[in-house]
């Protein structure tokens, strides 16, 4: 080996390679900017157009006896509907999702049933929301003969929530250290009490985060409730009888009207919905950040 090659062992990067590196860097930064543009645009327009009608009347009145062209009116009936339907959906989806995850992590030993459940949870994640709505329409309304109701919508939404809850809970349960379980077993605590008193409380914040993200997702779903809840302009606080309203439906129905007053109401509805969804998202992130030691760190 001559001294010449030793000196040139570390060569400066050639111009071509340097340029290529720079070009890619610029492209990658650009990609991020391009991705953020629609988000900024959507949020800006929702806030700007939504504030026009985002007032007390909007939050406390329904659309009863208010024509498309009339000013005023509000989304109270839709807000009530959204809250009730999402609550009912959570009441159905969270226990099933939670227990399924407990089965997968704590009880199954990788058997055929567990693999089948695991696979179909993945499949369920991919079910289009409109298909979930069609299923409840076919099953609950057409075959069993029940009427359109908030509860029917809640069932459709719960189908969309379940896989998210299962996966979030499963991930959290797997993060619970084995030592905790073994310590409980060593003290003679039965397995089910170990799960209820030790494993689940340890994973609780992570599970709550997952549930809230699932809630935020379904609160904005339109297609399934369109097929199962239908429309109403009046306040219907009973989710088990008669058509209800919810915020996505409210936006959908108002924006299809040609009148500016209705379009304004749609934007105000969008602002309300985004506030609810973003708040849930933010809360979920805050909880998981606050209890980060349990998570990956």
């Amino acid at each position, binding site marked *: 080996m001559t001294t010449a090659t030793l000196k040139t062992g570390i060569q400066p990067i050639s111009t071509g390679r340097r340029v290529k590196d720079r070009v890619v860097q610029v492209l990658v930064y650009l990609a991020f900017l391009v991705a953020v543009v629609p*988000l900024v645009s959507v949020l800006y327009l929702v806030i700007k157009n939504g504030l026009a009608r985002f007032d007390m009347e909007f939050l406390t009145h329904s659309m009863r006896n208010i024509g498309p062209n009339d000013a005023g009116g509000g989304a109270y009936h839709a807000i009530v509907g959204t809250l009730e339907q999402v609550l009912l959906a959570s009441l159905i989806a969270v226990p099933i999702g939670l227990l399924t995850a407990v089965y997968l992590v704590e009880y199954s030993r990788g058997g055929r049933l567990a693999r089948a459940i695991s696979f179909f949870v993945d499949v369920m994640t991919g079910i289009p929301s409109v298909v979930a709505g069609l299923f409840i329409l076919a099953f609950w309304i057409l075959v069993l003969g029940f009427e359109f109701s908030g509860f029917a919508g809640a069932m459709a939404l719960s189908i969309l929530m379940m896989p998210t809850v299962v996966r979030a809970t499963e991930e959290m349960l797997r993060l619970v250290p084995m030592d905790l379980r073994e310590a409980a077993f060593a003290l003679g605590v039965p397995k089910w009490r170990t799960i209820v008193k030790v494993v689940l409380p340890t994973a609780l914040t992570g599970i709550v985060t997952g549930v809230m993200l699932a809630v935020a997702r379904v609160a904005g779903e339109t297609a399934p409730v369109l097929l199962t809840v239908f429309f109403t302009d009046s306040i219907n606080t009973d989710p088990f009888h008669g058509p209800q309203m919810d915020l996505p439906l409210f936006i959908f129905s108002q924006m299809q009207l040609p009148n500016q007053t209705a379009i304004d109401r749609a934007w105000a509805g969008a602002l309300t919905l985004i506030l609810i969804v973003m708040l849930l*998202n933010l809360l979920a992130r805050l909880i998981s950040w606050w209890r980060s030691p349990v998570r990956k760190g």
Partner: protein
Amino acid sequence: MAQDLKKPEGGPAMRRSAFRRSRGDTPFRFVSTGAGIVLLAIMAAIAVFLIAKAVPALQANKANFLTYFDWTPNATVPMFGIAVLAFGTVVSSFIALVIATPIAIGVALFISHYAPRRLASTLGYVVDLLAAVPSVVYGLWGFTFLVPLMVPPSKFLNTYFGWIPLFGGDSVVGRSMLTASLVLAIMILPIIAAISREVFLQAPKTLEEAAYALGATRWEMIRMAVLPFGRPGVISAAMLGLGRAMGETIAVALIFPITFNISFQILSPNGNSIAANIANGFGEANAIGRGALIASGLVLFLITLLVNSMARLIIARRKEYARAAA
């Protein structure tokens, strides 16, 4: 994991009889197994009830469901076919995928390898927020803002690139297949970006450092160490995005011009999709009309099932991706 605990052969202390059997144990085990079975039953019920309600409508159909080009199930002579809707669903989702995937890969690389460490997770959260915006809000935004905005660039493409059949056609409008695909692209971008990001982050550090040690620039390192490792993950992420785009309903229902013809001219007022047709047609559907919509939903279910299963299989084949798949 859990099963490690109870090796029956593992020493006298760990024998099953050593555990005091509690009265609560069997019921709890039963209930949690039951929850899993309920989940399976729901999946089965979805298929069974969709088929049960679709069959009578399909029997009443006087046209060929697969090849007929119109949708009039509410008429006295019900005739409807899935061809146009399936075509629109597949083509609009595919265009969305072509637009979204390169940007999503860029975003994923930005967050995994380019952004300053301290900012990376926050910026990733910003992109995730795109997924948090409800679909109906994208519909409202697309309908009132993007549709008028898309007219000048569409006219430009039509004038100067009209010789490409894709951009041809005599009338150019904002409510076109291209605009719908653009909205779909925005909606699936965060999913593709999130999964790709997870996969890129799992690229072996040793390979990355080895590439740097050989004098590679950052791009060369990514091309040699990160992208080959991440390719299957990115492909399955794109397919999951494709599945999502196909099932997307409200946003495209508001943007698609409701037409029933097959055309590749994505700037012209052509286009419809299975999901959009369900949302738009449900209001005035009679019994056979509803059955017809359910039949179309069944087709959508099968298509998305196929796409998603393929994506899952690709992810499942590689154990390294276990976390990204969640």
